[in-house]
């Protein structure tokens, strides 16, 4: 059954989009990730214009983060103060990102920048994940292996920064500039790539800010809601590329898929899951890289509008 998407202005197979949302939802339930970094490239592979894919994915992530944050909120796993500081950076970063997006689009370079961002980030994160997981798999054979963690009280240039703030829930006393910068950077990625940014935010929170792992997911989900909401709003105003119909279809598939994924994931070992996710991330990265490197069959592209 075909459905005409009002903003993307193409007609798509409704079951294919539902399936796509479901598949990514399954994976996000399985691996405990947002899935934005998969949904956007898959939509682009399917033929949805990149601009619409990115903006719509942001809208969809609002929903998946809202549904995820409640459980963490009830368990008290959200550091509100840290979340708000990250958010302040995120709002500025995503606003700059949307503006950058519109500018790159007018230059005709947005597709390239989206692809490059994906190749770089997916490559780094997929590679690290795979490496770490294979090490963990081999280590568990010897038993007693613990996950590497940065020392909380090591002193570096980070602790010399001004505007120190106490974050009680995380048990941290660090400069507010640091979470502001992290928030800003991830916010920019949200606008440019249509991702929640959890895959950058979570490692940054653990290794850079030194937050305890228990509050990381909840806090990152909390701030992602508002940053993606900001991106959705700004993209609607500036580029009119948010397709609500597409977002709703992805949502329905995603919510159902996530439930199955979570049940299925409970039966697998954590490091095996991470190794699988790493492989998946790397293969998406390689596909994107391949498309950039091989000579395209059509060297010319057209776009309506002014230069």
């Amino acid at each position, binding site marked *: 059954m075909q459905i005409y998407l009002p903003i993307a202005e193409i007609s798509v197979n409704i079951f294919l989009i539902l399936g796509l949302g479901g598949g990514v939802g399954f994976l996000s339930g399985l691996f405990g990730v947002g899935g934005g970094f998969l949904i956007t490239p898959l939509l682009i592979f399917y033929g949805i214009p990149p601009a619409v894919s990115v903006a719509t994915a942001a809208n969809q992530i609002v929903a998946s983060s809202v549904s995820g944050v409640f459980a963490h909120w009830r368990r008290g796993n959200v550091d509100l103060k840290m979340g708000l500081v990250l958010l302040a950076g995120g709002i500025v970063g995503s606003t700059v990102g949307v503006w950058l997006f519109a500018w790159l689009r007018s230059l005709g370079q947005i597709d390239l920048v989206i692809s490059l961002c994906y190749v770089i980030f997916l490559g780094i994160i997929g590679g690290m994940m795979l490496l770490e997981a294979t090490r963990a798999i081999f280590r568990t054979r010897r038993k007693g292996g613990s996950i590497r963690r940065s020392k909380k009280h090591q002193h570096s240039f980070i602790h010399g920064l001004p505007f120190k703030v106490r974050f009680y829930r995380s048990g941290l006393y660090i400069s507010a500039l640091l979470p502001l910068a992290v928030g800003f950077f991830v916010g920019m990625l949200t606008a440019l790539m249509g991702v929640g940014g959890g895959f950058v935010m979570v490692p940054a929170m653990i290794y850079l800010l030194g937050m305890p792992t228990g509050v990381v997911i909840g806090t990152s989900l909390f701030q992602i809601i508002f940053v993606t909401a900001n991106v*959705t709003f700004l*993209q609607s105003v500036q580029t009119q590329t948010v397709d609500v*119909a597409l977002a709703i279809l992805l949502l329905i598939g995603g919510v159902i898929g996530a439930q199955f994924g979570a049940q299925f994931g409970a039966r697998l070992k954590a490091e095996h899951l991470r190794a699988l996710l790493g492989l998946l991330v790397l293969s998406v990265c390689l596909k994107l890289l391949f498309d950039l490197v091989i000579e395209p069959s059509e060297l010319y592209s057209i776009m*309506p509008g002014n230069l």
Partner: protein
Amino acid sequence: MTRSTRTLAVLCVTMLALVTTTGTAKRASAEPLVVDLSNHLVAITTGFTGTDVLLFGAVQHEGDIIVTVRGPDQDMVVRRKERKIGIWVNSESARYKNVPAYYASASNRPMDIIAPKSILQDYRIGLEHQRFIAISDNPETDQKVYRDALVRNMQNAGLFNERPAKISFLSNQLFRTDIHFPANTPTGTYTINVYLIQNGRIASVKTTPLVVSKTGVSAEVYEFAHRYSALYGIVAVIIAVVAGWIASVAFRKR
């Protein structure tokens, strides 16, 4: 299926009417060329996957027919990819004015047999006689290559037809052709010109408009997104928040 039979029935009735009127009214006012469409409105609804519009008509005296369909004009940017540090990057570009968003032509015989090239050129009939005004800041840009690329891309998108469609004559006087509009047909007012050509000269021209517009839910969403874009953004966020909340409530008990 029912749709095509219905249009066929409409066609038969109208053609009968055409024949009788051209027959009886021959002395009163001799119309050399009469044309009409099965539908003057292509409605893009939520289930739109492309459609055919039937063009039919009658000529009084034997002749050749050429039909051109031209969508609304727009500016188009053509970009060329170049390899830079191993990856393919958009580099040079050219801009064209008054490129039709859709162009299709049809004829009962090959156009160059029907009419001399000068006439096709003067009336801008056929894809190769469309003049796109290039706005380029780089004088060294090879206009022909870019123009070809523009046409090729539009053809791949299904918006320019690759070769003229076939017009079939049902008798010496009655003709019909299908104009295909793909799923990605741009909206706007289209101009359909029907040329009657006798002895290599244009004997008559009929022009008829065709409107392609979005209707129903998708039209309203599009309209809303463009006219009240801030409100649209807020609504999009609210929908997502509510959907996420419902999902978390629905699956909490398990």
